């Protein structure tokens, strides 16, 4: 008989924090110079989403490598949970980026290398799940999808880092530029950091829930088998 746990407090903190971030994105931060009207505000959502998509990819990689070493299906559950969230956030990042591009430059898609990178990340996640769906056996699904994840991971840096060096980019200069100083007005920077923290918290909470659910499922299946 499981004991009744007191409801954890921190999802509520997260909720309050995100509400604050959303408010701040519209009312606290000033409109950015050089961007059309209020459109720059999307940065507070787009950048954290892209960041979480990449974070999820890293979590997936680590979990995949751990599965390949230890063959513990919980690591596979972790990899899948991270990938699910990664897929959602890369869709969000692509969409918000595309909306911004439409407002700013008049077209939804411009083949900017960073745009393309996030879209490719999306394709990697989609491929990952297509692969998983096609394999009924648990262990084989885990080892094949982990292998694919590692293979995809070693290929990605090329698109994200190497190609942009060769191409001219539409993306606004990265915040941390060559001089090493931060080029953003301080209130905007605060909101951006707040949003990053909030989205990371959101990812971490959803991820933990997903993994916990998967563990219960695994335990139940293992006890059914023995």
């Amino acid at each position, binding site marked *: 008989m499981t004991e009744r746990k007191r409801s954890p407090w921190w999802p509520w903190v997260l909720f309050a924090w995100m509400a604050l971030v959303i408010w701040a994105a519209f009312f606290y931060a000033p409109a950015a110079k050089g961007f059309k009207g209020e459109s720059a505000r999307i940065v507070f959502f787009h950048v954290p989403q892209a960041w979480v998509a990449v974070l999820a990819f890293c979590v997936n990689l680590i979990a995949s490598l751990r599965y390949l070493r230890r063959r513990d299906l919980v690591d596979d559950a972790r990899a899948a949970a991270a990938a699910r969230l990664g897929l959602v956030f890369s869709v969000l990042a692509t969409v918000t980026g595309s909306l911004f591009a439409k407002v700013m430059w008049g077209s939804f898609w411009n083949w900017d290398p960073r745009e393309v990178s996030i879209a490719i990340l999306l394709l990697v996640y989609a*491929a990952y799940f*297509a692969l998983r769906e*096609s394999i009924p056996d648990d*262990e084989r699904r885990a080892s094949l999808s982990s292998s694919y994840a590692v293979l995809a991971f070693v290929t990605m840096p*090329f698109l994200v880092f190497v*190609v942009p060096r*060769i191409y001219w980019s539409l993306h606004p200069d990265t915040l941390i530029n060559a001089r090493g100083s931060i080029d953003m007005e301080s209130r905007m920077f605060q909101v951006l950091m707040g949003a990053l923290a909030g989205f990371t918290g959101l990812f971490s909470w959803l991820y933990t829930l997903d993994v916990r659910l998967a563990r219960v499922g695994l335990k139940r299946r293992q006890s059914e088998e023995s």
Partner: protein
Amino acid sequence: MRASSLLSESLAVLGKELTSELRSRVALNAVGLFALTTLIAVAYQIGPYKIEEADRPHLLSALLWIILFFGATSGLARVFVKEEDARTAKTLRLAARPLAVFFGKLGFNLILLLGLESLVVPLYCALMSYTVESVAGLALVMACGAVAMAASSTMVAAIIARASGSGTLFAILTVPLALPLLVVLIQGTKAAATSAALAAVFPALRAIVSLAGVTLVAAVYLFPVVWHD
């Protein structure tokens, strides 16, 4: 039993693949047919005259790689899928060192790709009036590109053969891995076409070679896992 080397075992696998393929010609036909059909369709519609002079370098290099990639993906998965279909996979698994299997089949896919390139590229240049300033540069890009593409496709083929083996799954999994490679290949081809200096292709070539290297190293670790699981 004398000690044998990975090289001789891989060559044995490569020899078997080549013999097998030359007798059945399934992959050759598929790849050749797809590539030639696409080439003819493109050449007929677009031909040497329909593209503006200014756009020619990048459009023509992009089109060339679309044709090559399309042709390649129709045949690269066969090395593993046919083993599973014919039920010889288990026999091979029990008889060989995993890396010998990988390198032998990689070698076969590489030969297939190089053959495809040798067939399509000259035809393309002729049909589309694609003048290439640096033939040596183009040859380098094509050769290194073939290695990189063979490495990642062979690895993906091994993965999908243990899954559903379908061509669709192969395409879905290959596309995200191939896109970065295609981008640099198109650039390298364009550089070779527009500049007679060999050094013009070096930036792209560096990216292609490092991509190939990284994929091969990953494959050396991952293939035994995929093959045996």
